[in-house]
């Protein structure tokens, strides 16, 4: 009797689990295409914000490679580098580097660098900084992040790539120095990385796996 009751309950629970998982699987299967498309659009939007579409004519968001450099790019994980070209000539790169020492953890950035080594723009991909203080690095809160535009390793000189409090030229926020300090250092290090690897970055081939996907996308389109 007891065994029968247990079996019945277990069967019931199993049925619910199967129906629930099944519904989730069906929804996922139907939604995943749209989700991937949305992500792709959102990526292209943020890339175009850094390098306007008029400046390149390659498949910018798919022309990417993965690189490793923990000291300069701030993470041990592979870092994605997107490459913009016009008629095959290098125009700019966008490097998804990390400021590892933010106040609330790592800050993921998109650093756009023109071929000549000047900054095309910087955007924040994700951060967990203090609301109202560190979050002022977000472009919809203050214009701070735009103070990098047009800068390079010679403008200002390397030792001035700091916040004002540390003797540099970049503003900090009232009550929040750690966040801007981390971002300034990360952008500077990304520039150093670019300076050391520029030609290799543009020459590197798109890895096999992505290349195949790229072909598929072309066929699909």
């Amino acid at each position, binding site marked *: 009797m007891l065994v029968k*009751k247990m079996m*019945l*309950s*277990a069967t*019931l*629970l199993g049925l*619910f*689990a199967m129906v*629930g*998982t099944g*519904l*989730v699987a069906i*929804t*996922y299967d*139907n*939604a*995943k295409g*749209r*989700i991937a498309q*949305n992500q792709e*659009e*959102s990526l292209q939007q943020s890339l175009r914000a850094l390098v306007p579409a008029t400046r390149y004519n390659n498949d910018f968001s798919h022309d990417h490679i993965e690189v490793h450099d923990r000291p300069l790019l701030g993470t041990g994980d592979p870092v994605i580098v997107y490459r913009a070209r016009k008629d095959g000539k290098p125009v700019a790169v966008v490097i998804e580097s990390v400021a590892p020492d933010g106040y609330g953890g790592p800050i993921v950035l998109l650093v756009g660098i023109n071929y000549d080594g000047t900054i095309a723009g910087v955007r924040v991909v994700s951060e967990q900084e*203090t*609301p*109202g*203080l560190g979050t002022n690095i977000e472009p*919809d809160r203050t214009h701070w992040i735009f103070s990098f535009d047009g800068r390079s390793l010679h403008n200002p000189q390397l030792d001035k790539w700091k916040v004002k409090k540390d003797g540099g030229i970049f503003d900090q926020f*009232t*009550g929040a120095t750690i966040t801007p300090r981390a971002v300034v250092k990360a952008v500077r290090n990304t520039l150093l990385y670019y300076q050391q690897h520029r030609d290799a970055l543009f020459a590197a081939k798109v890895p096999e796996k992505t290349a195949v996907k790229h072909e598929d996308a072309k066929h699909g389109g």
Partner: protein
Amino acid sequence: MADKSYSEIAYDGLWGNNVTFVQILGLCPTLAVTNSLINGLGMGLATALVLASSNTLISAVRHVIRPDVRIPVYVLVIASLVTIIDLLMNAYLPALHKSLGIFIPLIVVNCTVIGRAEAFASKNSVGRSFADGLTMGIGFTLALVLLGGMRELIGSGTLFAHSEMLFGAGAKDFTITVFHHYQGLLLAILPPGAFLGLGLLIALKHFIDAKVASRRVSVEEPAGSEATAAG
């Protein structure tokens, strides 16, 4: 147990048995996201949607579920529901999902949802359970909007900042700057401000309830009638 009327269900959900101020359930999302009015509103609406649908579903299968496995079944139903809503929003409302995305998984751990499933939906008809979920959800939303609005006003001196995350690009100028050139009181936006604000709002609710009760007594006493137990 006599069935509750729909007006009683609505009164309990919105005020009498308010999720946040009376049951004090779901504190994790309540305290975590209410640093602005819009965040509170988004979290509240998403929770209300899940509450209404999970109550309806669980009430519909309440005769099939065996009592000894009811809690795992609730967990399964709620988790599947939240995951499906999360996926659908990600696919068809990407802008809204981007701003609410981080909150949606939090709903699974909101004990309000399983609490209403156990306390109400497992014993009541589908219609009543839907009404209970909906009004409980709206009551929760109101509480989050109040708390978020209060913290945003004190913390940054604005209201409705970043409305565009919820209502699209057209809502960019919904922001009301109440205090100009206001430095902001950081405490209100940081987590301790959430606890202080919630405490103040609960105290305010008790104060209003006590005022209403004492007025009712003073009105009814001269007539000599006994105050009917409303609570």
